[in-house]
């Protein structure tokens, strides 16, 4: 709860720094504010309290995921000074809207009531529609925001109708009451409840970009300004997956049946199609978009394999995925600035001109592919063991096959960097930007070597 209040105050403060013409204060205040709100979030650890008649329930899972979200946002803001250095217009509105999007994401990790879930998703989405179009002069950015807005608002309707049908059959928006209703059904659910559940899954799957509902993702990711694409691919995805996870863990308590077959099929399709389509992408940004689609398939494994361990596995997975993805996007920003495009040929010979940057991109790619000893491997290992313990043998086989396919496209940039001849353009990097890149690379290695830092938490 203190997280939500502190982030609201930070967002308003950002806007008011803008109208007081204190542009140079913006980023220091935001970074400090995010640290403060992380500290305030940590104070809720082990308190297990609920606010406003169960509208918001703060437990250790929600605290841990809120921390992960704010930390990802912190990493993204640490890149913002470099990304926007040539922009003359005031940036307080973009930063403010980013913080409000983060606020929506935090609401989605700690909701105890479906109304709160919808409110969180809308706070997040409306902010994102604005952010996707925040580069007003670029046609691609306009296209991205229009596509995202039309599809997003349509799918929000699905979600809302799903919530209404669940309310109609169970008589409450409260997760605890719905859980009691599920228990009282004893396996035979009324059709209206099932229809509601189905629509709710569709609405959330759109936000996560899971396969039958993923078509918007590559186009929107490509058109959105790169820094904000990193925000979409990490913060938004983590928030949506934890919202789905929270719904099913709080209402079904491990009762398997109707819903997990649907998610099983969606996870398998996402992993296969995401990785196979990823093979054919001509540039790094679209490749990362498909990589993020296929990773949402792996994350769905945790939703299907709900058990005592899955909280931890999902936390480790989202954290390692987020850090590696932000790292990859950070280097993508540099490449787009230097070359004006991000085709794989632009990466040629980067190992000779900028060896340290090339090494960091290699770490990110290997971690996303799941090569030991990096964070991505440990995350996949824990996630797949959790799924195996729940008897999801075939899904794990599909996931491992998907990982094997993904190695092919994650090695494309690495081969371009190390084996091709250089085209002679050296990337210009300032020291603070380099520090945040190295910090993220270090984190990826550190989580890979010492996964118990995260895995023992929940």
């Amino acid at each position, binding site marked *: 709860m203190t997280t939500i209040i502190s982030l609201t105050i930070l967002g308003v403060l950002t806007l008011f720094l803008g*109208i007081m013409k204190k542009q140079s204060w913006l980023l220091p205040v935001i970074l400090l504010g995010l640290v403060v709100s992380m500290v305030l979030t940590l104070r809720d650890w082990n308190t297990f309290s609920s606010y406003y008649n169960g509208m918001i329930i703060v437990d250790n899972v929600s605290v841990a995921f809120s921390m992960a979200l704010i930390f990802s946002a912190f990493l993204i803001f640490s890149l913002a000074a470099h990304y926007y250095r040539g922009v003359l217009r005031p940036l307080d509105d973009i930063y403010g809207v980013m913080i409000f999007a983060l606020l929506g994401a935090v609401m989605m990790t700690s909701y105890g009531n479906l109304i709160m879930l919808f409110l969180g998703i809308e706070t997040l989405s409306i902010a994102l529609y604005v952010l996707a179009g925040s580069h007003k002069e670029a046609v691609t950015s306009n296209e991205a925001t229009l596509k995202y807005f039309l599809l997003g608002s349509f799918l929000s309707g699905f979600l809302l109708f799903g919530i209404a049908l669940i309310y109609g*059959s169970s008589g409450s928006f409260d997760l605890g009451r719905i859980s009691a209703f599920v228990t009282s059904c004893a396996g035979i659910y*009324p059709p209206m409840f099932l229809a509601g559940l189905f629509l709710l899954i569709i609405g959330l799957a759109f936000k996560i970009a899971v396969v039958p509902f993923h078509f918007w993702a590559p186009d929107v990711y490509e058109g959105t300004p790169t820094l904000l694409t990193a925000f979409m691919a990490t913060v938004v995805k983590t928030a949506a997956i934890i919202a789905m996870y929270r719904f099913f863990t709080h209402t079904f308590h491990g009762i398997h049946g109707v819903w997990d077959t649907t998610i099983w099929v969606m996870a398998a399709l996402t992993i296969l199609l995401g990785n196979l389509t990823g093979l054919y992408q001509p540039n790094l940004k679209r490749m990362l978009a498909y990589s993020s689609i296929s990773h949402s398939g792996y994350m769905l494994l945790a939703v299907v394999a709900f058990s005592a361990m899955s909280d931890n596995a999902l936390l480790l997975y989202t954290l390692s995925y987020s850090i590696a993805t932000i790292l990859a996007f950070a280097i993508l920003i540099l490449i787009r600035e230097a070359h004006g495009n991000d085709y794989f040929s632009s990466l040629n010979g980067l190992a000779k001109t900028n060896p340290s940057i090339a090494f960091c991109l290699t770490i990110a790619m290997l971690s996303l592919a799941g090569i030991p000893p990096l964070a991505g491997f440990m995350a996949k290992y824990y996630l797949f063991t959790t799924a195996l313990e729940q008897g999801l043998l075939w899904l794990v086989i599909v996931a491992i096959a998907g990982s094997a396919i993904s190695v092919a496209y994650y090695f494309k940039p690495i081969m371009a960097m190390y084996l091709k001849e250089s085209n002679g353009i050296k990337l210009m990097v300032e020291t603070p930007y380099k520090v945040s890149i190295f910090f993220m690379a270090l984190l990826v290695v550190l989580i890979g070597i010492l996964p118990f830092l995260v895995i023992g938490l929940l």
Partner: protein
Amino acid sequence: MSAESLILFFIVGAFLVGFAIVFSIFVAPTSTNPQKAEPYECGIPTEGLTWLQFNVGYYLFAIIFLIFDVEAVFIFPWAVVMKEMGMIAFVEIVIFFFVLGLGLLYAWKKGALKWE
């Protein structure tokens, strides 16, 4: 609620709506004349295309008006329970006004209220 009643609901719903439309065609008195096809029965028809760009200022004003519109929606239920809640309700609504006021102040300072 079982599946049968849900299906029945759809059938009855479709029938009733269809019935109302068809019934009104037969029952309602109809008279047609060229005047009826015009956009305004009184006044002059519009000149040129209506698909033109509107000044973005209208939208800004509409959005800022929304602040006060929503404010009014929240004040009515507040006024109903104010007596029972007492001081807490008062403090809450003051915080609410304060936040809305900040929004208006931001819009004002950003120049959204200036008509160009």
